[in-house]
């Protein structure tokens, strides 16, 4: 427990990824099993129970600290675990303190086995035996609120690097393939990483497989695309998911391997491995009924429906337990474009056209109307391809982002193999907006004003429409930083208000209604396209212009 507390304390304050990775590798090297595996679980968020509830912490502290002093302290500190960690002290009739601090695994086991009263006593004993930083770590761990800036994906990357110090055969892809088949405290995994045993067997478990990704296509490499060697598909504006289903279970994963099944009971509950069995690659979308036929030019086979907006999908993604009402309002669907295995047969070594054939022949006979198939688009020349890309903007009320181009002979390879898959997004939309506020960035950019809020005109007033922190070069960043410092007219905490004098040409993927900004509009993927040092601010675009670009 001591080493774990030190680790999370250090991670909390460390901002660089390299330094974070060094801390974790050092911890793995020096900490025995099963402690280190429980630490991995705590950081990756795979612990599946709370040790105790916040209510218990509150009750315990109010027995020991003057409520006025507690409230004043809490107001100042702003966070419960930390306030309690600092204010905690023992009482005469507490259970007797522990001889020494137990290991992390002992703490996990005790809380897992204990009943309410036992856990209460154990928590008091632990807190009485600890220093403030350790108490903070325990309280965060026990309520599963560890926020130390290490994502599960990043942790897996660190595990891979750690394993590669011992064994050539370790890779992040392999860890990803295993991950969902393993459970804390990950002793088999760690043993394999250290070259002490064979790779764990997860063949009978439901496991996420690492996905194949695409390169963005730039105009220069367009002539390299030989029409007869590639297929084209729409690039849908949903999220990439992987559906895994067999007699051992079923799950739907995000492209980073997070299990998001719980958010989509409307899909998961209906699927039966008798009808569908394998690993499928596709797009998760919301499906909406068309109010009138022909109202929207669509691409789904089922002509009565169309793809819902990304915003609608977002509402589903954010809910761990969606209400029936939400499910009815925004039913989810899948558009499948590839399959990694089908009926226990691994297809990854086959070429794309073969895989699609297998997928299609299964699809034509499957019973689910929320599952769609991503059809190949006909094209014989680059000109036809270009006009398909232009069409993308008019289809499905804009919820098609562009085109995917995939080599017909491509095998399914995890990662981003060269020359295999391309995404060709439709042209970004552009608007001229005026920079209004600036804020410092993070990490390497912490001394630069690199985050900009910009707005468009409504009569003679600017209303903010979005924020961007990318799209410029390092040199431009230096110039912008200087400009911000010389043009500051006000401060709101970390935010500087600047002269309304500089125009950005902002590129974005789409615009939709939102109550986040005063303008009532929000942009998707806004980035600085060009800095218009030459353009007078009054000539920037009006809010009306932006509104006219709204998806229907």
């Amino acid at each position: 427990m001591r080493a774990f507390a030190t680790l999370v304390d250090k991670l909390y304050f460390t901002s660089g990824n390299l330094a974070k990775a060094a801390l974790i590798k050092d911890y793995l090297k020096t900490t025995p099993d099963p402690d280190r595996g429980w630490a991995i679980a705590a950081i990756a968020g795979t612990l599946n129970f709370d040790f105790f509830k916040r209510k218990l912490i509150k009750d315990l502290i109010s027995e020991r600290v003057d409520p006025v002093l507690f409230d004043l302290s809490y107001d100042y500190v702003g966070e419960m675990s930390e306030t309690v960690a600092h204010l905690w002290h023992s009482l005469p009739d507490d259970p007797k303190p522990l001889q020494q601090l137990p290991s992390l695994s002992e703490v996990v086991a005790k809380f897992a086995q204990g009943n309410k009263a036992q856990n209460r006593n154990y928590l008091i004993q632990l807190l009485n035996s600890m220093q403030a930083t350790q108490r903070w770590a325990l309280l965060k761990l026990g309520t599963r609120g560890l926020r130390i800036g290490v994502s599960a994906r990043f942790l897996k990357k660190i595990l891979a690097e750690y394993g590669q110090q011992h064994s050539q055969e370790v890779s992040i892809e392999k860890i990803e393939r295993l991950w969902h088949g393993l459970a804390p405290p990950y002793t088999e995994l760690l043993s394999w990483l250290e070259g002490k045993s064979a790779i764990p067997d997860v063949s009978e478990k439901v496991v996420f497989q690492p996905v194949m990704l695409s390169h963005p296509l730039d105009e220069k490499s367009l002539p390299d695309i030989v029409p007869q060697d590639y297929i084209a598909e729409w690039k849908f504006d949903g999220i990439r998911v992987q559906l895994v289903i067999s007699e051992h279970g079923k799950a739907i994963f995000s492209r980073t391997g997070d299990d998001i099944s719980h958010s989509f009971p409307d899909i998961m509950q209906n699927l039966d491995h008798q009808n569908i069995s394998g690993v499928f690659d596709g797009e998760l979308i919301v499906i909406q009924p068309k109010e009138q036929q022909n109202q929207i030019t669509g691409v789904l086979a089922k002509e009565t429906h169309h793809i819902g907006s990304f915003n609608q999908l977002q509402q589903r993604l954010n809910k761990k337990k969606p209400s029936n009402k939400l499910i009815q309002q925004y039913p989810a669907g899948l558009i499948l474009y590839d399959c990694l295995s089908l009926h226990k047969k691994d297809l990854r070594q086959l070429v794309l056209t073969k895989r699609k054939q297998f997928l299609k022949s299964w699809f034509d006979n499957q019973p689910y109307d929320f599952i769609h198939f991503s059809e190949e688009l006909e094209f014989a020349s680059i000109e036809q391809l270009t006009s398909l890309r232009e069409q993308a903007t008019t289809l499905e009320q804009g919820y098609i982002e562009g085109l995917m181009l995939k080599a017909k002979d491509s095998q399914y390879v995890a990662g981003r193999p060269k020359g295999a898959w391309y995404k060709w997004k439709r042209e970004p939309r552009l608007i001229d907006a005026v920079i209004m506020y600036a804020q410092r960035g993070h990490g390497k950019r912490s001394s630069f004003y690199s985050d900009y809020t910009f707005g468009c005109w409504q009569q003679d007033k600017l209303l903010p429409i979005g924020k961007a922190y990318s799209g410029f070069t390092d040199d431009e960043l230096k110039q912008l930083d200087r400009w911000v410092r010389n043009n500051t007219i006000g401060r709101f905490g970390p935010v500087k208000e600047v002269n309304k004098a500089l125009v950005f040409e902002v590129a974005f993927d789409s615009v939709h209604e939102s109550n986040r900004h005063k303008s009532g509009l929000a942009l998707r993927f806004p980035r600085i396209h060009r800095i218009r040092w030459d353009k007078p601010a009054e000539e920037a675009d009006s809010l009306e212009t932006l509104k006219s670009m709204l998806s229907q």
Partner: protein
Amino acid sequence: MHPHPEHWITTDQNGLYCAVIDAYIDPLVPVHRAVVTHGHADHARPGHDEVFATQQTLDIMRIRYGEDFCKQAQALEYNQKIQLHQAEFSLVPAGHILGSSQAIIEYKGRKLVVSGDYKRHADPSCKPFEVVPCDVFITEATFGLPVFTHPPIKDEIQKLLNSLALFPDSCHLVGVYALGKCQRLIMGLRALGYNKAIYMHGALLKLCDYYVSQGIDLGPYIPVAEVEDMASLQGEIVLAPPSATNDRWSRKLPNVITAMASGWMQIRARSKQRRAELPLIISDHADWDSLITTIKQVNPAEVWVTHGREEALVHQAQAMGYKAKALSLVGYEEDESS
């Protein structure tokens, strides 16, 4: 005048006024007579007619503001009693920084102690706090919340040395206040056997030179401006005022880990706000336990609490059976010097 201090102490927009010595204590604006408890900029301001302070505080004001920082400077030894206007007046050590003092005012048998800023933790760069029993004790409350416990300085310095050992290629940039914190940190490093040169921002030099002139050994230190190859600062300790640690000045330093030495570093959110990756809880103020211990030892009839988190300390003093109230004084910065 009635002997009870409540009849001869008032607060106004200039600060704390004491009628029986006809002087303001640490006034915020130029006044005709000022008692200055120590040299931090929010307590020692230029432009007064007459200033009463220790020689070291006067020296520090001279370094910061120039020869004509006041019309007439009056240096007092610690515990040297003088008659000032209608009362007896003296200064005693406060343990805060070099030259820092408490102001003692005795009038018609009633004694008032104005603590100024003080601490009770050991500090080899200045004389320790002296307990002076009195009728009314005016205490600071910068860290007046029970969440504040300042650990022993050697533990915090050890954190810095551990980080240097773990990341030997990183330049360790430590934000320190130029007066007091800077020199105490250097002495803390020396005490743990760190003998290498310490690099520093130009703004810290003069006061370090002054400490050395007062017989305090800081070991070798070098201004960053004199370093030709910035890459050579990898694995070294660089000190800078907090305002420079995340700004244009620090960009040129190689592979930086930012540390910050301040009592506020105890609170995670404050450390993050300061972008401190390595927070060092080092304070020149009294922590919560010290505040309470000091009140018990001084054992006054009344406790008045000035700048900081008055509410909690007044509540605590009352719970301990003292008559207590808050004297609201504004204008003392809580950040840089703490």
